[in-house]
């Protein structure tokens, strides 16, 4: 979840931490901690507004939709679909551990039950559970640097993350690769409980967005279906804006 959640839920926000590279001065564990926090913080801010397009390609269909989203803190997120017209107005509110979906066609708001959490979110390769779970890498995982140096012409740092015993995490292991200079994430591998690759999230198209350089394209590829993917492209991002708490209420779900 991690990166993904941060991106979707924490919506693209950040306390623009200038990458203070005091790394050498720190102990190894201290350094790992700091790097992971930087990765986490890349996607987190006090509040945010973003416009994203999502493309889903599966064996049976390819579809694109655009949505706008607001977030406040780490608990509150709201998305509304802008395109296609057929689904315009469909909104998802994440508040704490609950997800509500507003359906304009039937003018109803539905709260998702626990049974639906592993279901696909909006036909994508993400589950509803991915949206609910909010985790900090450093809090939920025991991390270590498993590789550092040049690989395929890039200076990278590779982390191996094993979930802590009490962490509510469905994965068995994560591997995260970041650029050594900018600490921008490149790719993240998710392994299941049997340590078999379950999905890959890659980050690309590093552009200036929301005041700093960051990857603007995020692609989720399920390991068992290599031809399929869900891709998010960030079109617009505003950080630390003024958002009212009222925006994240059930009544505002219905407003267009």
């Amino acid at each position, binding site marked *: 979840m991690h990166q993904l959640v941060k991106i979707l839920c924490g919506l693209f926000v950040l306390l623009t931490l200038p990458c203070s590279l005091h790394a050498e001065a720190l102990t190894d564990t201290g350094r790992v901690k700091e790097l992971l926090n930087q990765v986490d913080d890349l996607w987190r801010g006090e509040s945010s507004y973003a416009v994203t397009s999502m493309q889903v390609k599966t064996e049976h*269909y390819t579809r694109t939709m655009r949505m706008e989203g607001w977030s406040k803190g780490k608990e509150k997120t709201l998305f509304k679909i802008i395109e296609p017209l057929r*689904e315009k107005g469909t909104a998802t509110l994440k508040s704490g551990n609950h997800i509500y979906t507003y359906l304009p*066609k*039937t003018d109803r708001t539905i709260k998702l039950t626990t049974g*639906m959490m592993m279901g696909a979110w909006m*036909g994508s390769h993400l589950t509803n559970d991915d949206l609910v779970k909010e985790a900090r890498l450093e809090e939920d995982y025991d991390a270590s640097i498993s590789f550092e140096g040049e690989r395929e012409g890039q200076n990278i740092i590779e982390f191996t993350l094993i979930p802590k015993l009490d962490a509510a995490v469905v994965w068995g292991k994560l591997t995260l690769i970041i650029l050594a200079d900018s600490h921008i994430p490149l790719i993240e591998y998710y392994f299941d409980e049997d340590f078999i690759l379950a999905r890959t999230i890659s980050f690309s198209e590093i552009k200036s967005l929301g005041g700093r350089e960051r990857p603007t394209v995020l692609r989720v590829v399920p390991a068992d279906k290599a031809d399929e993917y869900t891709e998010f492209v960030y079109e617009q991002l505003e950080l630390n804006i003024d958002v009212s708490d009222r925006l994240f209420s059930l009544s505002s779900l219905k407003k267009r």
Partner: protein
Amino acid sequence: MNVTKLAARNVYRNSHRSLVTVAAMAFACAMMIVFSSLMDGVIAGSERNVVAMNTGDIQIHRHTYRDDPDIYKMIESSKQLSENSRQAGFFAAERLFAFGLMASDDSSSGVQLRGIDLVSESTVTEIHQHILQGDWLKKDDTHGVVIGKKLARLLDVSLDDEVIFVGQTADGYMANDSFQVRGILKSIATDIDSASVFMSNTMLRELISLPEQGAHQIVIMRSDRKQDLAEATRVVSALIKQDLEVMNWQQLMPVISRFLETAQVQTLIMLLFTYIAVASVVLNAMLMSVFERIHEFGIMKAIGVSPWQIIRLVYAETFIQTLVASIVGLILGISLSWYLQQYGLDMTSLADGMTFAGIALDPVWYAEMSLSSALIPIGFLFVMAAVAVIYPAVKVALMRPLEAIHHQ
């Protein structure tokens, strides 16, 4: 010496004792008839719940569909295949399935949508008659659904309430529509009761954007119930000529099939215990009636009655009593079974919502009479009586006359 006449007189003379013996045997016989017809009825009822409510005799799927029910795994030529099956003398119906979330005002639950061909479904299953409340689906009702009993409770909805479905269409969009609950089904099987929503297959095709043709499942029913199931499965497989999975209900649900088979054995074992109890009653009565009259038998032997004749006499008495008992028992047993066949035995307080391997057992138990459920207890009664009386008969026959006369 006329053994039959003497035996009849003996029985008549000891009317009190004979009455008790006959009554005990008749009662036991009646109970056995009722018990075995009730068990037959329960077994047949469970089988009906399995086959006639849902599974049908034979089902056709794409090969991996049952393990992974993916909406894209459709039998494209389902219409043609059902038509072919009908021409070969079977009943056939196409079904479509989809999954999603059903929500009412207060709660929501994951559901399986079951798209049904309203015309042909009634030829293969009796589900349209298995309604607890409301009505079955109607052709011109484009928003009516029928839902399982537990799902209705889960969503807290009753007739004509509105429910919302949210899911995903085959082309990746959001499937969403509202429906009215037109009917609530009686108990069928755990998964159907708690998660199924029945609608017409045209409604489901539209909701999920499925192609005009094709189905996920074809259900086949034999038109001749006496045709062997395995044989019918072979006929259907030969008819298909495609790489599809053809399985009959016994293959689809081996646990239940085995359970129903063993239930018959269980019934027999339980009957056997009842019979043994009956046999001890008969034995007791016979022992009493013989040993009470040792003095009398001694005199008979003294005047020249042979041991063989005595054995015949005792047997004849037993036979007369058993005959009377079986006639009374038969009348009693059949009338009781008939009553239970008509009105059933309401076990709701004891066995409501009881299921076995996911198959609901009807809380009202109906008996099902057959020739064997009446004749086997009677045959057994005769055998038991004959065995029970061996010991007293032989003992008396072999006694010395003098000893017998002086016996107190």
